[in-house]
C-alpha cells in the first residue's frame, strides 16, 4: 500500500521559490488503480519522485507497505516498478540482455530472472524478437519491452508516469491491458496522467491535482455526485475555473475515500 501524508516540496528556480507539491495526502490499496490526474506542471512527477525516495519532501512523508521512503530509500525502490513516458531502450543490447540487466539492477537472482523473462515473453509476446538488438524494434515492440522491464523484479507497487503519451490507439490499448493485468495480480498501481478519458477507463479512484494541491479525490461515482458532471474532463475544467476564480474547493476527507 502507498500512503502519502502531507507531502510538500518547494524548488528554487533562479532564486524564485516554486511550490511543486503542497500538502498532498492520498492512499492507494493493493489491487487498486489510483489515477493521479492533473495538467502539465501540476506536480505529478515530483510526487512520484518523492514516492521513489529520489527527492526528499520538505515536509510530510510517503510510506510503502508501512516503511517510510526516505528512511530506507534503497529498499523502497526495490519494491517499486516505474514505467514512464520517455522510457527508452538500449539500442546496442538485445531485448534479453536489456531485461536481464534490469533484473540485475534489482538484485533478482539470475535463474529466477530467466524464468521471469520467459513468462513475460509469453505474456507480452516478446518471443519473436527477444534476441534482436533493441535498435531494430518498432515503437510498439519497444513499448512492450519497457513494460516487461517494469515487471522483471515483480514489484508489489507499480508507478505509471504518463505511460500512453505519444502512443497510438493500439499502443494505448496494450497499456490498458497491462494495467488490467497488474490489477489482477493484486498490485498497487499509481497512474499519473493528464489524459482524463483514459483514466476514466482504467482507474478505480482519482485524485485531481492542480498547482501541487489535491483538488478532489474519490471514485468516479463520488465525483459525479459531488460535481453534477458526467465526465472527468468537464469536472476538471470546472475545478480549475473554480480554483482560479476563488479559493480552492474544499477537499473531502481522505480517510473516507480510502475506506471505500
Amino acid at each position, binding site marked *: 500500500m502507498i500512503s502519502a501524508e502531507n507531502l510538500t516540496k518547494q*524548488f*528554487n*528556480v*533562479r532564486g524564485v521559490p516554486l511550490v*511543486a507539491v503542497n500538502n498532498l495526502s492520498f492512499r492507494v490499496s493493493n489491487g487498486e488503480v489510483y489515477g493521479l490526474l492533473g495538467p502539465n506542471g501540476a506536480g505529478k*512527477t*515530483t510526487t512520484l*519522485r518523492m514516492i*521513489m525516495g*529520489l*527527492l526528499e519532501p520538505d515536509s510530510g512523508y510517503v510510506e510503502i507497505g508501512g516503511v517510510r521512503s526516505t528512511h530506507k530509500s*534503497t*529498499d523502497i*525502490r*526495490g519494491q*517499486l516498478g*516505474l514505467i*514512464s513516458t*520517455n*522510457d*527508452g*531502450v*538500449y*539500442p*546496442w*543490447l538485445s531485448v534479453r*540482455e536489456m531485461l536481464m*540487466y*534490469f533484473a*540485475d*539492477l*534489482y*538484485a533478482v537472482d539470475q535463474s529466477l530472472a530467466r524464468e521471469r523473462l520467459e513468462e513475460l515473453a509469453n505474456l507480452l509476446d516478446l518471443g519473436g524478437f527477444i534476441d534482436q538488438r533493441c535498435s531494430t524494434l518498432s515503437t510498439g515492440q519497444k513499448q512492450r519491452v519497457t513494460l516487461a*522491464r517494469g515487471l522483471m523484479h515483480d514489484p508489489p507497487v507499480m508507478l505509471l508516469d504518463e505511460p500512453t503519451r505519444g502512443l497510438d490507439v493500439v499502443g494505448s490499448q496494450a497499456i490498458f491491458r497491462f494495467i488490467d493485468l497488474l490489477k489482477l495480480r493484486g498490485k498497487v498501481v499509481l497512474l499519473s496522467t493528464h489524459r482524463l478519458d483514459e483514466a476514466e477507463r482504467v482507474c478505480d479512484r482519482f485524485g485531481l491535482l492542480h498547482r501541487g494541491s489535491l483538488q478532489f479525490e474519490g471514485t468516479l461515482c463520488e465525483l459525479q455526485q459531488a460535481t453534477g458532471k458526467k465526465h472527468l474532463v468537464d469536472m476538471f475544467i470546472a475545478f480549475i475555473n473554480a480554483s482560479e476564480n476563488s479559493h480552492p474547493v474544499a477537499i473531502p476527507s481522505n480517510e473516507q475515500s480510502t475506506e471505500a
Partner: protein
Amino acid sequence: MNKYLSNGRLWRLCQKELRESLRDRRTLFTLVLMPILVYPLLSMALQRLVIGSVTKTKADPVFVIGAESEDTANQLQGMLAEARLAMDRGFVSPITITRTAEPKSSEAAKSTPDPDGSNQPGLDQLPKFDVFISDQETLSKALRDGRLDLVITRMNIEQVQLERGTVPVYEILAEFRQNDSRSEAALSVFRLATQMINDFQAEMIRKGVDRKLPVAMTFNATGIAEREDLSASIAGVIPLVLILMTITGAVYPAIDLTAGERERGTMEALIATPAPRFALLFSKYVAVVTVAVLTALANLFATWMTLSFGGLGQALLGKNGFSVWVFVQILPLLVIFASFFSAILLALCSFARSFKEAQAYLIPVMLLSLGPGLVTLMPNVQFTSLLGIVPLVNILLLSRDIMTGQSSMVPAFAAVFSTIIYACATLVVAARLFGAEAATSGSQESWWELFSRPKKSQMLPDAGELAIYLAVLFPMFFVASNLGGMIELKGSWALFFNAAILFLLFLLMPLTYSWYRRIDIPTTFRLGQGTGVGEPLWIRVGRWVGYVIGVVLLSAGLWMVAFEAYLLLESWSLAAQLTEADKQKLKADFLAVPFLVVFLTGALAPAIAEEFFFRGFVLSAFRSKLSAYRSVLFSSLLFGLFHVIAGSVLSIEKLLPTIILGLAIGYVAIQTGSLWPGILLHTLHNGLIFGMSRFTEQDLAKWFGDDTKHIPISWLCGGGLAIAFGIALVFVSSQRKRFHEDVI
C-alpha cells in the same frame, strides 16, 4: 556488502556497459580507424621535419666558430687553411689518429659513435668556417642559442718530448651543442680537419719536408647539455598525440554512457532501481577506461610500428629509438592517464542533459588540455618535481622523458601518485553528479550541493570525502615539502617549519573540513577516552594503565623492526649516496640541534598531527565502507606513501617502516577506539629512533657488539616479545566495553 551489489553483479554491470560501447560503430571508428589513418600521416609529417632539419645543415655549409682572442682566431684560420691545402692536394690520410678526443662529457657516446673516424663521411672540400671573436660568456650564450656552431675555449701550444726531439703540439678545447645536428656536423668537420692536418704533417715528415706548423694536434670537445633541439621537440609531440588520441577514444563512450542514457530515456529507469549510484557510474567508468586503454594501446602500437620501421625512432628518440622497454613504460602511464581523464569526462557528461550539451562541455576541456600539451613542446621545459603534481602536464612530461630516456624518480612518483588521487576524487564527484539532475526535477542545485555545507550531519566521513580531501591535500603537501628546501631554513628553524606544516595540513585542515561538512569530530577523530560508557573510575584507570604499558612495550620493540625494515631498502636512500664526510657533517648538524627541539618537532608534533589525520580522518573514512582489517591496511599504505615524499627526494627506504608503524597504531586505534594511545605510541617510536640516532658508532658498539649496522638477534627477540606482550595487553585492556566507538 550491499545486498544490491555483489562482486558478480558489479562485473555483469561492467560487461553490459562494455558490450554497449564496443558494439557501437562510432567507438570502433575511433578505436581502430583513427590510428590507421593518423599515424601514416603523422609519420610523413615527421619525416619531412627531420629531413628538413638535416638538409638545412647540408645546404648551409658555412659554420661559425667562436674564439676568445684575435690570436686564437688567426691560429684557427691558419690551421683550417692548412687542412684545406692538404685536401686540395688530394691528400688521403693513411694514419688513424687515436689521440684525438677523450671527451669530458658523454660526447663519445652521444655524438661520435666512431671515435676512430673510420666511418666519418669523406669531404670533397672543407666547408667554410667563419670566426667570431668575443668573451667566453657571450660565446657560451651564443652557442646555447644556436648562433654559434662551435666555441674554441682553449688553444695552447705545448712542447711534447718525443724520441726524435721536441714536437710542438696544439691543444685545442672546444664546446658544442649536444644532439644538435648542425653543431655536431661542425664538430665532426673540425675534428676531421685536425685529423687531416696531423696525417698530412706526419706524411710530410716522413717525406722529409720541413713544415712550420706543429706536427700534432689534440682535440677535446665538451658537449653542453642542450638537448632541446628540433628532434627533442618532436619527441614531445609523440606523447601529446598519444594522449590526445586516448582522450578521443574515451570521449564518445563517456558521452554515450551518461548523457546518452538521458537522451535515450533510460536514465530515469536506471536511477529508479535500488542499485547504488556509485556502482552504476563505476561500471560505466570501467567501460570508458577500457575503451580509452584499448585506444591507447592501438595508438601506442601504431606509433611503435611507425617509429620502429620508418627509421624515425632513432632520429627522434636517440640511439635506442622506440624500444620495447619504452613501450612497456609508456603503456601503464597511459592507463593511469586514461583513468584520470575518463573520470573527468564522466563527471562533465553526467552533468549534461543531452549529447549536444555534453559536447559543448567537452570542447573547452579538450582545448584547455591542449594548452598544457603545447607547453611541454616548448624547448627547455624541465620536468621538475613541482610540475609532477600538475595534472596532464605531469604525464606528458614524464612520457617525453621516458621516451628520451631521461626520467627521474621524484617527479615520476608525484605524477603517478597525484594522477591516481585526482582520478579517485573526480570519480567521486562524477558519481555524485550522475543522475542527480534527473532526480531533482531539473533544479540547478547539483554542482553547488557537492561543495556546499550539508544540511545534515554525518557520523563519519565516507570514502568519497576522503578522495576529495586527498586530491586537495596531496598537491599542498607536495608543494609544502618542497618549500622547506627552497627557503633554506637552518637547524631548529627548519624543524619547526616542518612541524608547522604538519599541523596545518594534517590537523587543522582536516578538522576544519570535517566541521564544514558537518562530520562528527569526536567520533571521526576518536577523541574519546577509550573507556566504556558509565564505567567506574577504577576500571577506566585500569584500562589506561594497560594501554600505556602495552604501548610502551610496543614502542620498545617496534623501533627495532622499523630500523631493520629501513635497512632492507637503505641502498635506495639519499644517505647511501652521500660521502662519508657529508654523512659526518649531517650528523654534526643534527647533533647541534638540542634534543628537546628534535623531540618536539620530530616526535611529538608529527605524532599528534599524523595521528589526527591517518588514524582519525583516514581510518574513519575507510571504516565507513570497509572492515576494520582492511581499513587499517589501507590507511597504513597511505601513511607509508605520504612518508616517501620528503622534499625534493623520494625516501623509498621509509615506506616499509612507516607501513609497519601504521599497522601497529591502526590496531591500537581500532582496539581502544581512542586516538590518544596511538599518539603516545607514535611519539615514543619516533623519539626512540631519533634518540638512538644521536649515539655514535663507538657508543653503539658497546651494546651491539661488532656489527653496529644491524641490531643484535638477542635484542630483536626481546623486541618481538615486547611487541607480542604489547598487543596482548592492549587487546585485554580494551575488552568488554560498550560504547559508540565500537562502530569505528
